[in-house]
């Protein structure tokens, strides 16, 4: 006889466990990022760049958080459609890439300026 799909299966509990571990791991990452970002800026003229860099890092971190929220929503049963999950994942992925590019631009500009000062 056909069992109800997913009920009591080992695979389901393995997936839920993996999602929980991922959520915990990124929480630890989040904490560490917070510690790094808490560092004080050294000189007044460099402050602007460092703040922008910090802002860029925060946005990257924010996008990673969105991905975890999705995992949580799947576990809680708030998501009822594969297309929604996939679209959200792709969007998070792109937003992450975007934030990363922004950060890279700032780092490049910072390096350029630092080179000039010598």
């Amino acid at each position, binding site marked *: 006889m056909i069992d109800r799909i997913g009920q009591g299966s080992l695979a389901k509990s393995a997936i839920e466990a993996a999602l929980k571990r991922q959520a915990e791991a990124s929480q630890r990452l989040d904490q560490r990022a917070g510690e790094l970002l808490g560092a004080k800026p050294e000189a007044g003229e460099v402050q602007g760049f460092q703040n922008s860099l910090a802002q860029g890092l925060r946005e990257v971190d924010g996008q990673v958080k969105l991905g975890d929220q999705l995992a949580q929503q799947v576990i809680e049963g708030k998501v009822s459609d594969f297309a929604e999950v996939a*679209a959200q994942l792709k969007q998070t992925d792109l937003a992450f890439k975007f934030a990363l590019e922004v950060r890279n631009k700032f780092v490049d500009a910072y390096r350029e300026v630092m080179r000039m000062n010598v």
Partner: protein
Amino acid sequence: MDIQGDRGQLLVKLMAATSLRDRWISNNIANQNVPGYQRRDVRFEELLHEKLGRHEADLLEVQPEVTVDTASPSGSNGNNVNLELETTKARENRLMFELYASIFQSRMELIQSAITSSR
């Protein structure tokens, strides 16, 4: 940050409505031999069409509608599911899904190359 925008959101809603329709076609097929069962339809694209010309944000508020089909003729046991018709609808529906998915995907690919090819 909503990188896909309203157009992307609309495509996701179209895919979700198509999945819902698949679910009800599936239910029709499952109940094809049940006495008295009346088949269901899901309307979404028609409802969007009614609001055509409006802003995308308005379109995003449209919800899919599940309707009971009382018009189609029933057999002697009161069941009005026609297996050939449901199978055809299932195939059409699947193709619509592929269409929406492809449009969504190429849109994302466009955005992605805009982001990453910055040099």
